[in-house]
């Protein structure tokens, strides 16, 4: 009996090891006991703030630029508008975690695939809370892992100043979208980059400094 169970145990330990083996993203990190069950994202929260950015979008070698505006209009919803530098409105969405409404979009951009991509990108950008299922750390950073169905979210925070500087959306094995924040105060992000890995799409937002004159 003893003999026959040993290989079985070995195999199951091995399998266990494999299934426990962390995602590439958490390589070099140690698993930690959960300190909290939810993580509150500090950005895009203030309903009094007009979040206005210069936007540069690079999609399959084409460059598009304009002005990106987001504003929290009620507890659950943000209004998101993208205009040209001249001020012409290109698209105008209302977006929450469960609802989505197109207020307007110019015919040139009115493509289902584009709208769906932007919808999920903006949802990721404006999402305010994650349920945490795992936690990892190394000397500099803490990573919080959240899971929803087959989607995984990795929230990277720096230990020194507690800032959320990166969110990665991934499948079980692969990174899908990398969302990075540069923030001075961990309330407002001056610079945001949304980098896709499965399509050639990169969106960069740079905070629009108010004019001093």
């Amino acid at each position, binding site marked *: 009996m003893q003999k026959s169970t040993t290989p079985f145990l070995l195999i199951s330990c091995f399998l266990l090891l494999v299934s426990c083996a962390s995602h590439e993203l958490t390589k070099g990190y140690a698993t930690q006991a959960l300190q909290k069950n939810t993580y509150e994202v500090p950005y895009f929260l203030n309903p*009094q*703030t*007009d979040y*206005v950015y*210069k936007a*540069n979008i690079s999609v399959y070698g084409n*460059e598009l*630029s304009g*002005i990106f*505006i987001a*504003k929290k*209009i009620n507890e659950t919803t943000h*209004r998101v*508008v993208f*205009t040209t*530098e*001249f*001020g*012409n*409105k290109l698209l*105008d969405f209302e977006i929450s975690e469960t609802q989505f409404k197109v*207020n*307007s979009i*110019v*015919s040139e951009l009115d493509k289902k695939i584009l709208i769906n991509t932007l919808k999920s990108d903006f949802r990721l950008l404006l999402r305010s809370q994650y349920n945490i299922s795992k936690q990892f750390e190394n000397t500099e950073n803490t990573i919080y892992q959240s899971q929803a169905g087959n989607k995984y979210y990795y929230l990277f925070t720096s230990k020194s100043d507690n800032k959320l500087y990166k969110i990665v959306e991934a499948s079980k094995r692969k990174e899908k979208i990398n969302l990075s924040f540069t923030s001075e105060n961990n309330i407002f992000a001056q610079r945001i980059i949304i980098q896709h890995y499965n399509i050639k799409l990169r969106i960069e937002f*740079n905070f*629009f*400094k*108010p*004019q001093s*004159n």
Partner: protein
Amino acid sequence: MKIKLTILLLSIFSLTTSAQEQKMTAAEAAAFKQSVNDVSKKIKTLTTDFVQFKHMDFLSKDIETSGKMSFKEPSLLQWQYKKPYNYSIVFKNGKILINDEGKKSAVDIGNSKIFAKLNKLIVGSVSGNLFDDKEFDIAYFKGKQNMARLNPKDAALKKYIKQIELTFDKEDFTVVQVKLLESSEDYTRIVLKNKVINAKIDDAVFTN
């Protein structure tokens, strides 16, 4: 309640506008058009500083950008934003040349009717040479300043711009403000100042 309040606000608004501005008579409009056309015909070059205010109802503040515009006959145009970012766009020989913080790109608009119209509209807005009854339904107003409201007839243009409102200097008949209204009542207001007419402009300005 909300509707009542809106009606009240609207009627106050229309009262105040009607107090400040009055529709010109046919004779006044003809004379005004003539004066503006005379001035705009003499414009060979034009440079002006501008401040752009993007107004959207849901924002707490207008988005303000500013820079400089240069125009040279017959159709060289540079629109240059300097604050809060450097972004310049040149309309030249059927091409749009863009310089976005040093990153350069070009778009061929040779065959794009809508861009040709847009180009004409921008130049016309600033020079005042926009009174084309075939393209627009135009109404003229007098008051503290003279004003023209233009409603595009072209369906393609109408999608982007519901109305263009040009405000003119009472003394020299040049444009001092351009207001572009979008269909949703949001607008872009551009204030022109420090205008210089017919100074020499080097073609190199339009290279981007």
